[in-house]
């Protein structure tokens, strides 16, 4: 923890270092990224394609969400702090650098059925309790990119990502989950012509989520702990948190190729990539419910056009994700040594059900907006835009067959206007309204899933019934609803003096509410303060 606090302080200091020059307001920071789409890609060498003015942003916020419109594996209330800091800088004549640091510390209230970080449309091997409890979560997320400036036709770069997470359940069984995620992303760009640039990045990423033994004061001796195998299939064993340990180890490998086109008015960057994941799930002495692998295809296209004083931005981003688990049927082999009387134990995989669980998901996001530029493209007075998003998933378990499929379409409009601009004191108002429509909502469970278990039922039959009735059925209801959401955000930015140094400070407040056609709602509100040093 102390190490992380030191990192946090260093990050703040790094942001504050390097002052002078003209002030950068939030609008200029936003426009800087928009007009340099390469900076929004994982390709670190993209920094060299369109160098960005030295500056940084540091923001500290508090968010709170609550309501009853949420999935069964999400809590009723989420609140916490969020610290974010990023900086664009130049290390020397030939080296450009960007770094970001994000720290989240939040508490989720009344959450159940999942003690893991990634419960949805991912590895089916989830562990959790049916008893609702509070979860404390801390996530440290560091990213850095280093790039050469353009050297002839080439730029070279490397990105490094590091994420550490910790999630603790505050009620019996008191599980704790640790997350570590490291990646290195070497990259390059090649200038074909003055207008055309090609880019390439490859990456290797290692992720480990570890759940050691759960602690408990065990006030309830009938407390069950659940092992999920995909869809409704689960094992519910009383006291199974005792001696429990599990770790998920994933290797991710992949890359992206980019193609950029830039003229005086147009900046258009396209990216296509894929990622392969291989995950091993293991417990004590090679005990494992199965393995998981996935492919994620990603594509994005970012188009910017400056026409007179108008900036037109269009972006299309999408991904298609396919994952599958191979479930294992294992047996514990006990081999006694007759000379010593000591027995050795080993889990042996007797059978593998290939692709027993298959998950597919997609997300396509089309965004179009227009800004009224001012002050040499460093500011804008208003913005208006539309957004269209299609997303969904299809989770399927085989033998016996069960399936959950969801397709949704979300359409929204948004705008930004300046209410006040006086002596560099700016007040802006942002608003957004969208409608999230259920297109497909299908849930087919196996015949046995709704058979009420008796005390003679197996732990698997009991677990399966509980997940069918208390997780998937409520989720099915969640996805059957259409939701109307609106968001209102007010921001105030102002010049600030800090030991003879001028910088920009800002304050933001927002409120968002989603209301469904079944009278459920989810409300978010937050406030944040920040600075933009040079």
């Amino acid at each position, binding site marked *: 923890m102390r190490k992380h606090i030191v990192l946090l302080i260093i990050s703040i200091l790094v942001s504050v270092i390097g002052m002078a020059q003209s002030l950068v307001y939030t609008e200029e920071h936003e426009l800087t990224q928009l007009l340099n789409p390469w900076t929004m890609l994982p390709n670190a060498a993209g920094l060299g394609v369109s160098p960005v003015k030295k500056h940084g942003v540091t923001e500290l916020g508090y968010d709170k969400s609550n309501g009853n419109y949420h999935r069964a594996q999400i809590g009723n209330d989420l609140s916490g702090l969020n610290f974010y800091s990023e900086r664009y800088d130049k290390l020397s004549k030939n080296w450009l650098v960007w770094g970001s640091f994000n720290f989240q510390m939040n508490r989720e209230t009344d959450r159940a059925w999942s003690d893991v970080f990634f419960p949805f449309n991912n590895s089916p091997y989830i562990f959790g309790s049916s008893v609702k409890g509070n979860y404390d979560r801390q996530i440290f997320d560091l990213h850095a990119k280093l790039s050469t400036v353009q050297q002839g036709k080439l730029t070279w770069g490397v990105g490094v990502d590091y994420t550490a997470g910790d999630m603790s359940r505050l009620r019996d069984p008191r599980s704790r989950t640790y997350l570590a995620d490291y990646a290195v992303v070497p990259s390059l760009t090649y200038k074909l012509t003055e207008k055309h640039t090609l880019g390439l990045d490859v990456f290797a990423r290692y992720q480990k989520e570890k759940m050691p033994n759960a602690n408990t004061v065990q006030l309830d*001796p009938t407390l069950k702990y659940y092992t999920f195998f995909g869809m409704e299939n689960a094992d519910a*064993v009383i006291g*199974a948190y005792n001696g429990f340990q599990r770790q998920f180890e994933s290797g991710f490998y992949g890359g992206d*190729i980019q193609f950029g086109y830039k003229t005086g008015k147009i900046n258009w960057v396209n990216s296509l990539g894929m990622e392969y994941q291989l995950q091993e799930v293991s417990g004590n002495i090679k005990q494992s419910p199965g393995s998981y692998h996935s492919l994620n295809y990603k594509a994005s296209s970012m188009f910017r056009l400056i026409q007179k004083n108008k900036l037109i931005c269009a972006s299309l981003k999408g991904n298609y994700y396919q994952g599958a688990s191979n479930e294992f*049927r294992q047996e514990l082999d006990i081999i006694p040594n007759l000379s010593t009387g000591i027995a050795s134990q080993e889990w042996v995989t007797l*059978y593998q059900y290939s692709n027993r669980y298959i998950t597919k998901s997609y997300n396509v996001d089309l965004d179009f907006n227009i800004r009224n530029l001012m002050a040499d493209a460093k500011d804008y007075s208003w913005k208006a835009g539309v957004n269209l998003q299609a997303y969904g998933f299809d989770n399927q378990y085989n033998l016996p067959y069960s399936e959950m499929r969801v397709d949704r379409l979300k359409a929204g409009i948004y705008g930004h206007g300046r209410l006040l601009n006086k002596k560099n004191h700016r007040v802006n108002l942002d608003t957004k309204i969208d409608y999230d429509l259920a297109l497909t909502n299908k849930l087919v469970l196996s015949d*046995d899933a709704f058979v009420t278990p008796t*005390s003679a039922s197996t732990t698997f039959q009991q677990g399966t019934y509980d997940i069918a009735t208390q997780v998937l059925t409520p989720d099915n209801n969640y996805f059957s609803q259409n939701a109307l959401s609106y968001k209102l955000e007010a921001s105030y930015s102002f010049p600030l003096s800090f030991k003879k140094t001028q910088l920009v400070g800002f304050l933001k407040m927002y409120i968002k509410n989603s209301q469904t056609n079944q009278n459920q709602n989810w409300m978010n509100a937050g406030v944040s303060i920040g600075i933009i040093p040079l």
Partner: protein
Amino acid sequence: MTKQISIFLILLVSVVSMVSCLDETTPTAISKITVQVAMPHGIKDSVHYANRYVILKSNRLEYKVLTDSLGKAVFENVVPDIYSVSTSCEISGDQYIAYSDTVVENKGVIFSGSLAKEQLFSEKTLQLALTKSIKQSLLISKIYASGTKDALSKNYTADAYIEIFNNSDETQYMDGLYLGLVEAESVIAFPASSNPIYIHARQIFRFPGSGMDNPILPGKSIVIANSAINHTISAPTSVDLSTADFEAKSTKFSNNSNVKTFELIYTAYASLLYMNLTNGGDNGAFLFKTNDDISTYPIEYIPGRVSGNRYIRVPAETVIDGVEVLRNKATTGPDPNSKRLQSFIDAGYMFISSISGYTHESIDRKVDVAKSTNRTYLRDTNNSQNDFKSVTDPSPRKYDKPLLLE
């Protein structure tokens, strides 16, 4: 320019073509599993196990199929898994005489057979050999070992008990009978598969009396406790054992001087003078009758060892009734390979849902509803998976719970 875009497109197509979508071939069911049931030794060749149910059971699924006229059961579209295979049926004394190839007593008989942990991952034909056992008068009807929590939520273990029921129509006497608890090493030391004619016991107790001192009337039962007191005073979810018939006296628990002593004959653990019923299992128990001098039975170390716990070897043929109670495991459930009782004593096994106990779970024998018109008869198919249920409200001498009447 065209050339450069072409290079980009070639690169793009190359990358995309190198990766194809994930293989989505799903697992398939086994088209056919055949179980050929063979009648036990001593039954005429012309008699087949016809029109009886054979059950395939995994932790997830259960299939039930009737045998044909030749005793063959065919299961179709079976999900690959590890299954237990079992069947049992009861025949009358007259049928037993008619089926036998020798002269036999006119007594009801149970045919039963089971295969534990059959790995059914592809088409297969299994041979299931039946054993026969004469229907017994005395049955172990309840084993309560899990313990519970007391009023302060602390573990409470003093309330364990075993109940024995007279399932016959005649008064039975407990005098001189023995009750054994099977070996319960965490790594099984004496599996039934390696010991077809002996059971290794961790403890043996004897019922006192000289012949007719301890009768059980038809349809009635006796209760054996470690501590014959009312445990509900300390632990509300526990049981009142103040009316128990026998007590394994020890200094560990409060004793009731009005209750007869359950005599300890052998214990593998010198300090344990009470019934060593463990909270999670294994708690296999067997009732047996012998005129042998028990002190002459061999006492053996775990194979391969020359020190540690020693277990007394009891001939399996002396057993009147036995119930296999296995430890439930978090990751795999109970392990049928750790059965200590032979299939002719108990073709199946029972377990409680908890892996560590303190859940006030009891293993109770179900009622033979069809037969229980004037009095209670308990089910006895020689397979505890068919005959017992795990219940969470232990209650001595009580057999009218809905769960036991299913």
